[in-house]
């Protein structure tokens, strides 16, 4: 069957499934809308969290980046998984015990201050919206590539679908929908990886395949990869450090604490019945995430090897441009892959030296989507990858929208400006807020030249520098007071925003951001994407200093801290 038809069928079927679930699980009460009545099993919740968590950045983008960064790409692998350890130990059980709806609600009550709550809402909205724009962009690109419509129409279709189930379904719809999406995206990611690993090494497990010998030889795949990339003048794959050891350290730390500070992930832990389940949920989420994250390095290394082998099948014998495969032509039409015959020999030279390299553009973001085609896998596998990429982007966008909606309707309206708002009106307000956020993020998705990868890293830096330190200090210290927390959050997020804007411009152009050469003006050689960790350190330091010289929190707040540290006596989100 035609690839195009097959893609329509597979994507159509998966969408019908998500929508069916959303309609079936239509939420009733406010509480159900936000946190699904607190009645979701840890394994199910773990799967939904995994789908929430793994966005277009993990699915479409990450392995492609690693393919070109080699060892340096490890910052994403460790950063985006290690954060769950922090989440499981430092935040999830305590926030579950606290048992309210939203992250700003906790910050407002723990720091006994409406100002703190408003600051938290602002930080939350800044990082969530930043993140959603990246997802919208991913949705638009994936739709336009596979359904052969323009990017704008692809984005509009995506917005309509996100609106449909996020707004009508609420959390419960999202939870079950996200379980379905997890299954689709993980199959879509692992099946091609298994095929490719088996073809290259004879070992079907990609995690082992990457460490195996090439099929029919006794040369290790990674040694072969190191050899071919260095022959072309690139840095050795398995030892290519990203910037400096310090930069890698800070980058990894920033992504880790950003993970633990992202509101749409934290809110997930409000949906399990007990504190014990909250601890287990984080573990299950990590198991499901790890399936993708341990497969990604194999996808990355093998994609790089296959790409080079296609262009230069035998050393010194380059592919004739007129004989290039179909996938090459397809991606050329998107403008993400460009060839320029510099020496006029009609053949493709792909080398590190910029003056003689003829692959003038290989956008890293295309690697995962192009990978099954490069490896000549059957069409149904390629169609499945399209469906998986869309599932990843849609599920994360929906979870983020919910966090934005609840911050606006619950924290700003009910919590601060209109305390008497009825449950019905609050629900209405949150739906309007979601629709507004979709329209806003969609609008921003139309306009800026490129937003994807840089935006996602920035979102993490912002969450790391603002929300995580406030939550952690709120739980582990009784002495941090409202003045400290407010000053800390503002200092952390401002430092991070300033640094990023200073180096990347306010409308940061992301398409070269991940491969851009290191700038001599960077603070100790730390790249802007990694700066959230420094912002977080500022936040901790300022909060501590200010709290020392101002009054201790009132007794009631200290009792609240005692209360959340006791794992039993859970109330709150367990339904009315």
């Amino acid at each position, binding site marked *: 069957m035609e690839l195009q038809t097959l893609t329509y069928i597979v994507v159509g079927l998966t969408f019908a499934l998500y929508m069916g679930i959303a309609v079936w699980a239509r939420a009733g009460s406010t509480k159900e809308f936000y946190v699904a009545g607190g009645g979701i099993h840890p394994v199910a919740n773990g799967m939904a969290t995994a789908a929430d968590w793994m966005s277009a950045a993990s699915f479409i983008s990450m392995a492609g980046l*690693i393919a070109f960064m080699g*060892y340096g*790409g*490890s910052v994403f*692998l*460790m950063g985006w*998984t*290690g954060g*769950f*350890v*922090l989440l*499981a*130990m*430092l935040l999830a*059980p305590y926030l579950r015990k606290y048992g309210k709806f939203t992250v700003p609600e906790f910050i407002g009550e723990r720091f006994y201050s409406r100002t703190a709550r408003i600051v938290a809402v602002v930080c939350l909205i800044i990082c969530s919206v930043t993140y959603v724009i990246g997802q919208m962009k991913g949705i638009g690109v994936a739709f336009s590539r596979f359904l052969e419509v323009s990017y704008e129409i692809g984005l509009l279709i995506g917005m309509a679908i996100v609106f449909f189930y996020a707004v009508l379904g609420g959390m419960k719809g999202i939870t079950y929908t996200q379980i379905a999406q997890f299954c689709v995206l993980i199959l879509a990611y692992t099946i091609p990886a298994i095929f490719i690993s088996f073809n290259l090494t004879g070992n079907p497990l990609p*995690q*082992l395949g*990457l*460490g*195996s*010998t090439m099929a029919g030889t006794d040369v*290790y*795949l*990674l*040694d072969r990869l190191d050899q071919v990339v260095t022959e072309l003048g690139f840095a050795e794959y*398995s*030892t290519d450090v990203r910037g400096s*050891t310090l930069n*890698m*350290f800070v980058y*990894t*730390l920033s992504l880790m604490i950003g993970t633990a500070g992202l509101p749409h992930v934290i809110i997930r832990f409000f949906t399990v019945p*007990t504190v*014990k389940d909250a*601890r*287990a949920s*984080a*573990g299950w989420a*990590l*198991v499901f995430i*790890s399936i993708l*994250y*341990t497969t990604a*390095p194999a996808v990355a290394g093998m994609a790089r090897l296959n790409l080079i082998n296609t262009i230069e099948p035998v050393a010194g014998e380059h592919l004739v441009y007129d004989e290039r495969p179909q996938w090459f032509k397809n991606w050329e039409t998107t403008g993400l892959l460009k060839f320029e015959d510099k020496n006029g020999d009609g053949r493709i030279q792909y080398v590190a030296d910029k003056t003689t390299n003829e692959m003038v553009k290989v956008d890293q973001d295309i690697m995962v989507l192009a990978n099954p085609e490069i490896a000549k896998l059957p069409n149904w596998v390629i169609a499945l990858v399209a469906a998986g990429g869309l599932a990843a982007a849609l599920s994360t966008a929906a979870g983020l929208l919910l966090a934005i909606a609840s911050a606006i309707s619950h924290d700003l309206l009910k919590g601060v400006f209109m305390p008497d708002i009825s449950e019905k009106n609050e629900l209405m307000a949150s739906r309007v807020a979601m629709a507004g956020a979709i329209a806003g993020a969609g609008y921003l998705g139309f306009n800026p030249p490129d937003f994807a990868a840089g935006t996602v890293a920035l979102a993490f830096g912002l969450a790391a520098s603002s929300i995580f330190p406030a939550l952690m200090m709120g739980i*582990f210290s009784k002495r941090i007071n409202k003045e400290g927390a407010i000053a800390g959050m503002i200092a952390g997020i401002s430092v991070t925003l300033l640094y990023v804007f200073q180096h990347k411009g306010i409308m940061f152009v992301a398409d070269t951001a991940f491969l851009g050469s290191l700038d001599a003006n960077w603070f100790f050689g730390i790249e802007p994407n990694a700066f959230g960790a420094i912002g977080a350190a500022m936040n901790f330091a300022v909060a501590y200093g200010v709290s020392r010289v101002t009054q201790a929190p009132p007794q009631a707040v200290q009792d609240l801290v*005692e209360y959340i*540290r*006791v*794992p*039993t*006596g*859970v109330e709150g989100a367990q339904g009315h």
Partner: protein
Amino acid sequence: MAFKSEADAQAYWKENVGIMLKLLVVWFVVSFGCGILLVDVLNNIQVGGYKLGFWFAQQGAIYSFVILTFYYARRMGKLDSKYGVDGE
């Protein structure tokens, strides 16, 4: 159910933080330690086709994280029952 006494509550919290800190040391060692700071040293050791430092950065750290979170959940479950705060 709550703690029997204030002393119990304090002892529970102290043990809780102790478990957490120990596990965070492991968390740090497997990722920042083996995957970043000591990567060059560990890369001298070859495990199959993997250099060991590279393996930690792209595989080993992630497996360790999974084990850590489950171990934490189990260990805390035991601590809860020791202090009688495991019921509902």
